[in-house]
């Protein structure tokens, strides 16, 4: 088991009120899963995704990555785990606008202090796999939406993480491009045996996922 969440509760404080986002979630993510989290806005899927990606800590419950409890680790330790083992794809791409495609993809490897030759090898590989080899020197604003999301996927996968967290990766894309991105993510997941947890509203995306988890009002329905 790659990721195990047990009895997860999470609330937010909004204007003096406590708003429960997750009301006791149990979830197991297996190695190599290509899993979709679906649910309406405000259902808690983004909160669940943040907890899976160690971006946030639960109020109650435990999160195990492999066999280790990681849910309540200090921020620094969670950061180092994210750096080594977790990749992220965001709805708005979240690329650094002043960095070229090459440099955006290189960023996570720089954080890991990987030697230059190894970095370049990894970047060449992932840009090739995502069809971006010709765009290495382009800035994000010189690319289409689909190309930008490819860069984001390349950035998430370049460090060969065990887990990729994707938050609405096709939400800002047209139908054709969204299909391409779904295919690409699926291919890469199969190639590298990488686990994907994807929050999405997109039915096409859900259809390509081996597991679909429905979340509503802070609980898992199915």
């Amino acid at each position, binding site marked *: 088991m790659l990721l195990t969440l047990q009895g997860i509760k999470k609330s937010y404080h909004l204007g003096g009120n406590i708003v429960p986002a997750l009301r006791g979630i149990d979830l197991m993510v297996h190695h190599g899963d290509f899993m979709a989290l679906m649910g309406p806005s405000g259902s808690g899927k983004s909160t669940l995704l*943040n907890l899976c*990606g160690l*971006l*946030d800590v639960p109020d109650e419950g435990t999160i195990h990555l492999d066999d280790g409890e990681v849910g309540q680790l200090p*921020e*620094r330790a969670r*950061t*180092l785990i*994210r*750096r*080594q083992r977790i990749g*992220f794809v*965001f709805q*708005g791409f*979240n690329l*650094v*606008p*002043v*960095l070229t495609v090459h*440099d955006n993809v*290189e*960023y*996570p490897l*720089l*954080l*890991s202090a990987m030697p230059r030759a190894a970095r370049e090898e990894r970047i060449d590989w992932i840009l090739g796999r995502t069809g971006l080899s010709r765009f290495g020197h382009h800035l994000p604003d010189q690319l289409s939406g689909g190309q930008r999301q490819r860069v984001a996927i390349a*950035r998430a996968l370049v460090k060969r993480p065990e887990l990729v967290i994707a938050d609405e990766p096709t939400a800002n894309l047209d139908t054709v491009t969204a299909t391409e991105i779904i295919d690409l993510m699926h291919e890469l997941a199969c190639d590298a045996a990488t686990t994907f947890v994807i929050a999405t509203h997109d039915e096409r995306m859900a259809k390509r996922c081996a597991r679909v988890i429905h979340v509503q009002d802070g609980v898992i329905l199915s």
Partner: protein
Amino acid sequence: MKWIIFAFRNVLRNRRRSMVTSLIGAVGVASLLTAAGFASYSYYMLKLYTGIESGHVIIAQPDFWTKDEDLPLQYGLKDYQAIASAVQQDKRVAIAVARIMYNGLLSNGTKSMVFLAEGVEPRQFQITGPTRTIIKGRFLAEHPDAQGDVEVILGQKLAKSLKVDVGSGVTLMVTTSSGALNAADARVVGIFSTGLIELDKRLLYTNLQTAQELLQTDKVSKLTVFLHNMDDSDQVMQDLHQRLEARWPGLGYRTWETEADYYRSVKAIYNRVFSILGIIIGVVVFFSVSNTMSMAVLERTREIGTLRALGALPGQIVRNFVLEAAVMALGAVIGGLLITTLTIFGLQWADLQMPPPPMRLVGYPLRIYFAPWTALGVSLLVLLVCMLAAYGVSRRAARRPIVEALAHV
């Protein structure tokens, strides 16, 4: 290296804002360097002037400095010629000359005025150059004619008060070293200006020999030693003290700086003024960079969240902003050096004069020295201030919860 390149790119993200910040820094650097350069020039000129006035090393009886004389040359220096010869054996010494300080009454026959006089060896001025501006006539002859008139040169205000000119006859009246009265007729051969009104009303120069004859003494007030390099003063003074002590025990030795009350006062005031100026400019640069970095941090909150999600530690985020501030500081330093250089050459070209300071008759050229060590210090100060400002601003943003940062709009 990559991080520095990224910092450059981020600085260029909002070119106008970064340029304005760097420009403020550049003006700060230029202000500090210009002020420090002006102070350095003033220190240098004052030092030079003081050294020529007092000598670089001064040898006298210790009581000459600490006690008031009841009679002229009561604490005078004997055997000064032998001491001067011994001093001149040091290769760092350009010349050692004696001086007598005395006073008395100067009369044109109908009117008398109090004077302050220096008996000097004119050969000194071949080494040091003239320390007084001769307005009319000439300086004292190096070898006055034994049969000729006693020569005297007068401060311009003194000459004016007595209504005498070059060629006029005057009478010097003094108290001798034994307390008797003595007088000598003299011919005015020159009129000078010191630049100081009060001195010009009182000061006159005679030859050393004239002064000794008037005061009926074989002593001098002090021996003034001029060096090839003024900066050797302390070392030469120590060496002379050691070497001469055996033969002439108990002599007093001082350097020009001990004598230079005015130089030390001016330096203390300037240092204080420029320290305050430095603090003010530092604060302005600090707030300017803080403001720029605050805006950059605010605009890039989501980006900070993204980078944190990718595995950047808060310290790495802060480092990136600090590097960006360092890049802007570098721009400020380069701009500041450029402005300073242009100012230096501009002032040289324009040959501007400063107005006369209080109690002085003449102004002085407005010049700025470029002091490399000061430039280095100011550059490092600006760099430090910019980096501190960036650190202060970005530290909190880097520690903001990632989820909150990612949701920032």
